[in-house]
């Protein structure tokens, strides 16, 4: 049973980025097959140089970096969304693979369950 967790929200402005990560961690804890797709404004979660302590929030990019430790390695970003937002400096993102719209469509089709947050 595979879960595709689609993130569509920028971090910090609302709780969705954090609450989506919590789902991912929970799925990993229960050893479920989970993939994360960053699309739309969720691409901003991948930006480098986040200093969230300035607004008293936990650092999303640090949490994302830690995901492979919990066994979450299937992470993808919509390359078109990255380009449109002119995001050039990403956090250490060796685990995150860029996908085209066509590949993303295939991901939606092959997942058993899709959760968008």
């Amino acid at each position: 049973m595979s879960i595709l967790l689609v993130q569509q929200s920028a971090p910090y402005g609302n709780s969705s980025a954090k609450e989506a990560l919590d789902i991912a961690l929970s799925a990993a804890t229960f050893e479920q097959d989970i993939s994360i797709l960053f699309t739309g404004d969720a691409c901003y979660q991948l930006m480098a140089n986040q200093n969230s302590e300035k607004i008293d929030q936990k650092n999303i990019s640090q949490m994302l970096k830690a995901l492979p430790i919990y066994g979450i390695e299937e992470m993808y970003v919509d390359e078109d969304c990255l380009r449109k937002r002119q995001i050039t400096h990403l956090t250490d993102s060796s685990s995150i693979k860029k996908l085209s719209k066509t590949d993303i469509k295939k991901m939606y089709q092959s997942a058993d369950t899709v959760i968008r947050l």
Partner: protein
Amino acid sequence: MILHTINKTSSHESLNQQLSDTVDACDSVILIENGAYQAQQLTSTPVNHWSQTAKNIYVLERDALARGVSMSIDKINYIDYTKFVELSLLHDKVISWY
């Protein structure tokens, strides 16, 4: 075969574009909540719009009736919640666009 639900009007361009990028020819879309308003605009959508790709377009009739949306728009299937549930099981999964 995916069942997509969308609950926003056409003014949510990014969301509608994401749906258009994802919908396949064997998928169906249900317009729910404020998404029901989109039923009135489907004759004027561009060629890659989800409404041109999707196999069937449904509207939750109660959401259409509540909003004064016409109950006789061509190519729209008006359904109740029971049919919504049925469609959920007939398709492989449900993806909610909101």
